[in-house]
C-alpha cells in the first residue's frame, strides 16, 4: 500500500503531468503523419528523456507510444495510408468506411476500442508482471538463456514470414552486440583499433538509426500523393460507438486477449497482433463477406488488439529485461540509462517505480479519449503538413540526439550506418525486429549461455533439468522443429 501511495506521489506531480500531456500531443502528431511510426516516435524521444528523471522519462515513452498507435488509424481512415504499421491491417477497411460516408464511425471505433483494448492490456500488465516477478526471482542462467532464445524464436517465426532471413537478421544483431570488451574473457573483439568500439556499439544511436533514419530514407525515396477521402467537417465521432460495443463485445474481448498474449510474447508486438486479430475476426465473423467493404467488425477487434499489445509488451521487458516489441526494446535502453535496470529485483527494491509506470499507463489510456477526439477534429489540418518540411528536421534531430547520448560524433556515425543498413534490410525482405533483439539481448544471451555451459560442464541435459527452464527449452525447440519439418510435411501432403 505504501508503495502505491509513493507511486501516486511520483506520478501526480506537475512536471510529470506536463510531460504526459506534451508527449501525448507529440505521439498523436507523429502517429498521425503517414510514414512516421510509433517506434520512430519513441526513438526520437530518447535523446530528450536522457535529460529527465526516471519517472517522467518512462511516462513520456509510455504516453507517446499509446497515442501514436491510435493516431496511426487517422490517416488510415482518411488517406488509406496507415500512420503506423500497427494500423496497416485494417487501413483499407477504415478507408472504405470513410468513402461510404462513415468516417466518424470508423474513427470513433478506432478511438474507443483503442482505449478499451489499452486498458485491458494495462490491467493484465498490472496483475501479471508482479506475480511473474516473484517467480522470476528464482530464475537461474538456464531460465534466462531459454527466455532469450524464446524471444528470438518468436521474433523470427511468429512475427516474420521468411525464417531464413529472420535468423540472418538475428545473427547480424548478435554480431553487433559482440563488438567490444563486454564478453567472458574481456577481450576487445572486432574493434579494429578504434577506441570508440572498445566500449561496444552504443545502443540508442543504433535504435535511432534503425527505426527513425531508415524511415526517413524510405519516405524520401517515395513520392506519395495522398487523396483526402472526406471534404466535409466531422460530425459526432462517438455516435454509434456504444452500439458497436453492444454488437461486438466478443470481438472486443477476443481482440484484447489475443493482443495482450501476442504483446507479452518476447519479440512480437502491436503490428502482428493487429494482423492476427483482423484475420481471426474475419474467420469467425457471421458476415465475413462484408470484410473489405467498409465493415467495422475487424476494426473493433484489431483496433483493441494493437493497443492491448502495447501494455503487455512491457511484461517481459520489466520482469526479465527482454523486450516484448521494438518499442520496449528502446524503452529497455532508457531504463538502463536511468538506473532502473529491468528484472525481478526492480519489483522488490523499487516497487513504487513499477506502480508509477502502471499508473501512467492508465492515465495515458484515459487521456486518449479527449486528446484523440481533438486530434480527429484537427486531422484534416494535421495531415496537410508537408512531409518534405518534416523529414530533414527529423533527420537533424536524429543526428543531434545521437550526438547527445555520449557527446560524441561517433554516435552520429553509428546512427547513419544503422539507418542505411536497416533501409536496405527492409527493401531486401530482412525483418528489423530480430536484429534489434540481437543487439539488445546479445550481451545477456552470452552471459547466461556462458555461465550455463560452465555449470553444465559438458552435460547439455542440464539445460532442461530445472522445470521452468525445461518447459521453456522444450517449447523453443518444438517451434524450431515445427518450422524445420514444415516443408517435408507439406511435401508429404501434396504427394499423399
Amino acid at each position, binding site marked *: 500500500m505504501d508503495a502505491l501511495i509513493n507511486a501516486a506521489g511520483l506520478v501526480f506531480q506537475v512536471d510529470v503531468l506536463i510531460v504526459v500531456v506534451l508527449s501525448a500531443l507529440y505521439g498523436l502528431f507523429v502517429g498521425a503523419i503517414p*510514414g512516421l*511510426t510509433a517506434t520512430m516516435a519513441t526513438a526520437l524521444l530518447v*535523446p*530528450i528523456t*536522457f*535529460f529527465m528523471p526516471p519517472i517522467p522519462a518512462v511516462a513520456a515513452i509510455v504516453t507517446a507510444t499509446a497515442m501514436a498507435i491510435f493516431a496511426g488509424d487517422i490517416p488510415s481512415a482518411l488517406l*488509406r*495510408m*496507415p500512420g503506423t*504499421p500497427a494500423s*496497416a491491417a485494417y487501413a483499407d477497411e477504415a478507408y472504405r468506411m470513410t468513402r461510404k460516408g462513415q468516417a466518424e464511425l470508423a474513427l470513433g471505433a478506432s478511438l474507443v476500442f483503442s482505449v478499451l483494448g489499452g486498458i485491458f492490456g494495462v490491467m493484465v500488465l498490472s496483475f501479471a508482471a508482479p506475480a511473474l516477478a516473484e517467480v522470476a526471482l528464482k530464475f537461474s542462467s538456464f531460465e534466462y538463456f531459454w527466455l532469450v532464445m524464446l524471444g528470438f524464436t518468436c521474433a523470427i517465426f511468429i512475427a516474420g514470414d521468411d525464417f*531464413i532471413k529472420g*535468423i*540472418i537478421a538475428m*545473427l547480424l544483431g*548478435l*554480431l553487433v552486440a*559482440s563488438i567490444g570488451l563486454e*564478453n*567472458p*574473457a*574481456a577481450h576487445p*573483439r572486432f574493434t579494429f583499433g578504434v577506441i570508440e568500439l572498445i566500449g561496444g556499439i552504443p545502443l540508442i544511436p543504433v535504435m535511432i538509426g534503425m527505426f527513425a533514419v531508415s524511415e*526517413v*530514407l*524510405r519516405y*524520401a*525515396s*517515395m*513520392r*506519395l*500523393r*495522398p487523396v483526402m*477521402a472526406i471534404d466535409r467537417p466531422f460530425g459526432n465521432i462517438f455516435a454509434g460507438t456504444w452500439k458497436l460495443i453492444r454488437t461486438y463485445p466478443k470481438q472486443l474481448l477476443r481482440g484484447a486477449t489475443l493482443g495482450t498474449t501476442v504483446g507479452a510474447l518476447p519479440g512480437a508486438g502491436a503490428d502482428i497482433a493487429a494482423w492476427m486479430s483482423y484475420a481471426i475476426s474475419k474467420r469467425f465473423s457471421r458476415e465475413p463477406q462484408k470484410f473489405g467493404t467498409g465493415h467495422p467488425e475487424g476494426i473493433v477487434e484489431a483496433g483493441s488488439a494493437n493497443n492491448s499489445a502495447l501494455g503487455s509488451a512491457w511484461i517481459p521487458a520489466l520482469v526479465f529485461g527482454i523486450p516484448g516489441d521494438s518499442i520496449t526494446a528502446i524503452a529497455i535502453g532508457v531504463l538502463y540509462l536511468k538506473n532502473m535496470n529491468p528484472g525481478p529485483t526492480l519489483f522488490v527494491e523499487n516497487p513504487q517505480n513499477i506502480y508509477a509506470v502502471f499508473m501512467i499507463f492508465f492515465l495515458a489510456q484515459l487521456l486518449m479519449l479527449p486528446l484523440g477526439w481533438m486530434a480527429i477534429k484537427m486531422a484534416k489540418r494535421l495531415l496537410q503538413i*508537408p*512531409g*518534405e*518540411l518534416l*523529414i*530533414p*528536421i527529423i*533527420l*537533424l534531430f536524429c*543526428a*543531434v540526439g545521437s*550526438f*547527445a547520448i555520449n*557527446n560524441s*560524433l561517433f554516435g*552520429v556515425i553509428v546512427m*547513419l550506418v544503422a539507418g*542505411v543498413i536497416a533501409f536496405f534490410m*527492409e*527493401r*531486401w*525482405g530482412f525483418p528489423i525486429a530480430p536484429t534489434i533483439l540481437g543487439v539488445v539481448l546479445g550481451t545477456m544471451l*552470452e552471459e547466461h*549461455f*556462458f555461465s550455463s*555451459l560452465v555449470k553444465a560442464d559438458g552435460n547439455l541435459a542440464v539445460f532442461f533439468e530445472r522445470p521452468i527452464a525445461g518447459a521453456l527449452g522444450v517449447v523453443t525447440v518444438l517451434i524450431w522443429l515445427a518450422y524445420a519439418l514444415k516443408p517435408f510435411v507439406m511435401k508429404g501432403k501434396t504427394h499423399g
Partner: protein
Amino acid sequence: MRLIDRLVGIGLVVLGAAVMNAARSFPNVPGQQLGASTLPTLVGAGLVICALALIVRSFRPGAYRNAPSQTAQSVESSSGEPVRERIGPPLALIGAVLLYVFVSETAGFLLVAPVCLWIGFTVLGVGLARAIAWSLAASIVVHLVFYKMLKVPLPWGWVPVLY
C-alpha cells in the same frame, strides 16, 4: 529479389567466414574451454549456413511465388497512382549527415546544420526561399533546445559563442 538474395548470400558467407576466422584468435577464460570466441564462432557459423540456405533457395523454381511485398511497410498511394521510387533524395540526405559528421566540429553547428537542412529541403522539392527560411529557423530552434535547455555541448566552431 532472386538476384539480391544470391548477392547478399555471397556477402554473408564471406562475412560469416571472416567472423569465424577472426574469432580463432580470441582467448578463452582461464581454466575453461570457452571464452571470447564462443559466441562469435557460433554466429559466424550460423551466418554461413543460413546464407548458403538463402543461395540454394534462390535457385529453386517457385521459391518467390508467395514472396511478401518488397518492403514490410510498403505504402500504396490512395490516388491509385503507383508509388515512384527515387534514389537521389535518400542519397542526398545521407550526404547531408556525412557533411554534419565531418564539418560540424570545425565549422560549428549553427553554420553546418542550416546547410544540411537546406540540402534536405531542396532535394525534397521545397522552394529556395522557403528552404532557406526553414533551415535557419529549425537550426536555431534545435540549437536552443539541445544547447540551451538540455546542455548538450553542440560545437560553436567558427561562430563566436552567442549565449
